[in-house]
């Protein structure tokens, strides 16, 4: 009838860079990817106004998710000063998001898009992202060896950087199970975790990834509190 609690600080290693088709990408513990060579920030699945979408259906979730997401974006931009930011689709939870967004949040978003070159990739939730907040709208974006799009395509997909699936991974350490958002990559592609405050996760061992990452030859870059830990697929657990 006892429970041992180890309070010693989680030891975190400096994450080595992730390479996708030769491009060196840094996985950030905030749940984003930084491409140093292009000075470019990549985030996926912001799902802005997800809370109010539920509220409209009678489930009054706290109306602070958009603000929470924008504040985290703001902090990331302040820290890395990117030349360009790419949002990999599903940035808005639905087509009504723009209309529901509070004036204050809308002003903050418009201010953010002015601070850097901003690219909205179209997603399935937002096939036509609003242009009201600034930024360019594209179906996909190619830079060097990399292609940025919302929904990952079946393997092989060389150099694809996508979102859509909200990857997360679970691993057991000393009998304790840890489940975190992650970037999942086999070196030919990377799938980013959802950045939105209310966006949940789908375990990378789910069948939904079977066509994308065949076999167990990939890594999950799991988000720690202050750094990112790459874990081999063989060590991971399903949900």
């Amino acid at each position, binding site marked *: *009838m006892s429970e041992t609690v*180890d309070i010693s600080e989680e030891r975190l290693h400096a994450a080595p860079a992730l390479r996708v088709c030769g491009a060196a990408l840094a996985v950030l513990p905030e749940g984003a990817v930084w491409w140093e060579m292009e000075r470019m920030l990549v985030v996926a699945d912001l799902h802005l106004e997800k809370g109010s979408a539920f509220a409209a259906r009678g489930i*009054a979730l706290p109306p602070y998710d958009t603000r929470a997401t924008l504040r985290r974006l703001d902090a990331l931009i302040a820290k890395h000063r990117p030349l360009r930011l790419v949002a990999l689709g599903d940035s808005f939870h639905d087509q009504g998001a723009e209309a529901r967004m*509070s004036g204050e949040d809308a002003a903050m978003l418009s201010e953010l898009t002015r601070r850097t070159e901003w690219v909205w990739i179209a997603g399935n939730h937002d096939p036509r992202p609003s242009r009201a907040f600034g930024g360019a709208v594209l179906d996909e974006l190619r830079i060097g060896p990399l292609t940025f799009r919302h929904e990952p395509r079946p393997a092989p997909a060389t150099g694809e950087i996508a979102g859509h699936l909200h990857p997360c991974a679970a691993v057991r350490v000393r009998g304790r199970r840890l489940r975190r958002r992650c970037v999942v990559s086999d070196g030919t592609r990377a799938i980013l975790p959802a950045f939105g405050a209310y*966006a949940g*996760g789908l375990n990378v061992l789910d069948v939904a990834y079977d066509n994308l990452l065949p076999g167990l030859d990939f890594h999950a870059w799991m988000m720690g509190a202050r750094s990112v830990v790459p874990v081999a697929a063989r060590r991971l657990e399903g949900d």
Partner: protein
Amino acid sequence: MPKPTSRKAVPSTETNGLPARFGDWFSARGWSPRAHQLALLDLARAGRSALLIAPTGAGKTLAGFLPSLVELSERAERKPGLHTLYISPLKALAVDVKRNLETPIAEIGLDISVETRTGDTPTNRRQRQRREPPDILMTTPEQLALLLSYPDAGAFFGNLSCVVLDELHALANSKRGDLLALGLARLGILAPKLRRVGLSATVAEPDELRRYLMPQPVDGEALSEVVVAPPGARPEIGVLVPEGPETKDDGEARIPWSGHSARHALPFVYDAIRRNRMTLVFVNTRSQAEFVFQSLWHLNEDSLAIALHHGSLAAEQRRKVEAAMAAGTLRAVVCTSTLDLGIDWGEVDLVICIGAPKGASRLAQRIGRANHRLDEPSRALLVPANRFEVLECEAARAAAIEGAQDARIGRDGALDVLAQHVLGRACSEPFAPDALFDEVRAAAPYRHLDRVTFDRVVDFVATGGYALKSYDRYARLRANSPMTGDMRLRPSSPKVVQQYRMNVGTIVEAPMIRIRLIGKGRRPRGGMGGRMLGEIEEYFIDQLAPGDTFIFAGHILRFEGLAETEALVTHAEGGEPMIPSYYGGKFPLSTYLAERVRRMLAHHEEWTFLPAQVKEWLRLQEWRSVLPREGELLVECFPRGDRYYLVCYPFEGRLAHQTLGMLLTRRLDRMGARPLGFVASEYSLAIWGLRDMGLMAERGSLPLSELFGEDMLGDDLEAWLAESNLLKRTFRDCAVIAGLIERRYPGQEKTGRQVTFSSDLIYNVLREHEPDHILLRATYADAATGLLDVARVGDMLRRIRGHIVLKRLDRVSPLAVPVLLDIGKEQVHGEANEALLHEAADELIEEATRLV
């Protein structure tokens, strides 16, 4: 119900107001009514509400119904409408009581209709019941809430004359009790002359239940009448202690130092089963039930019919066991608290409790399951699993013989339950907040509710209650007819009403996963056949890796993997199962028992009944360290290996100790003691670190009075909560009850997790942006008495102020051994590690008992 009445004919039936035909019925059976049954009848005739406190077997239920039967038999003609409502915490009990009530009705020849209404009642019958109510309806608190949410509730309950609340001690003082109290307050408005009857086992504070029954006035308080039946025969209770020398031939101690399996005592338990006709074997957790059942089966050379019963088994399997029990074909059932309450099985002649009983009242309840005849004593055997539990069992035995009960911590009505009720009220008919506020405050648990809080709850129901008013256009409640000035609130759409009906109730089940047995050598994928063994908590499965073995439903199983919402398992090949961790947090040691254990430690004259080995252990402790006096907190500090330990003995239960451990390590860190970790047990708390905390305390750089200061419940608690994951589950439960999150129903999860939302994420955002939101307040209130037991930590810190005894030692003390043995237990898997642990354990005990 007929069986409990006394065979000794005492009072005559003519003088006591009992109609002749009832008196004749008693006489025909060779019985006469008991004094408390007649007392309740008299009170009912005077229109008074009453609480009946009576032991098991005293004819409690008949006493509750007798006035209604008499009243109904005296009516000139059959009037439509519900006359008496009976509410029980268990639907099985409602069904059983109905059956028992039908006997006197048929035998006296009364024209009275009795029906049950539970979740199992078919829809067409439920609809018919609302159109043509029976005279007497047997139901549960959740069904009452549903009935009250219909627009015709006023007509349905308008003629209600009496409500009978069974097992009230088990209902009040919980969220379910809060919901029922609010329903009762509503009934009081719909049927102002309503008479309330509470039926209860013996409790420490009957006034709490008397108040619960009555509508509370704005000033002061109202108490119902109370009738106390004479207690039953004193129970015969033994504590099982294996006799013999200190160690057995294989060198193992007779009474284990730690652990909860009671493996050492099971041969004696088997023997007791063999010598009795029917035995109930109570354990505290499901995993313990599995272990004990499995072990008894190994010992079962006589092939006795022994069965297993716990909440995770498939419902039909449980029903089968219950039926076999009722038919008298079983010799023993190993069970958890699922059988604490329930229908009478007259044939049980022995109750065995394995592991410490945790509370005097719980023990009394369990003992009461044996021998429902009032004039014969119930027999029980307590089986302590380790040395500390020997002390606890002795304390519990003394309490049971004296008939002492645990006092309960008073709590205010939960706000999440209130939110649910507010929505239910709107579903029934538009309400004016002013009137509803008065109505709610008449319910005893909510009598202290202030208007601001009430308004915030109503606002929460309407729009989510956020400071950022962005959801007004999606409001769930709207003014009834603002054009005509009718500002009463009603649901904004029929969907809201439907949502309420789907989510009513306060029991939030832990998410469960079905267990399916598949053939060996098959790949674990979904959609394949195999036998369903039952359901198990999701958090348990989360702890398993493929290949791990565990016991479930009496089998040793190998976990193969998950497929959709099922856990796939195979039969494991021989060998020892990895025994699952002990989830004992459900029932922490009661304050009352803890006090008795502390007293026992302090006074030699109370050691009389203790087995020699335990006495020896305590004497060694006195010699090597000290035994704390009553009211003192002993703090021991000693080095061991390359670490320094601080062990204290508050006896406040594991939950409180865990909270204390979290807070103390924060403080120790700040005071420079460099703590590394801690482990909490039911009785003590051990913290280890890199610096000698005893030396620091002696030199004044770590004053213990400051370390154990009450102010830790302020900032430190706040800071810890901010980082803790512990509150997230509590938050989820509150959010479900309050109606923010809809319940998950089986088969509903297939949509995939990413399209829904996670309550953890919502909790994070809400905590960051609106920390004083009403739902977070409800969460903290829950945590204070539940998961974190903050209230108890606070009481303890007050109690020991100025009474801390520091003892610096050169090595571990005998009293500290059990908690130190618990360190690292969570990480032990399989045989090799088991052997390592045993090595370590032996060394530790030798070190503590060495005399020089």
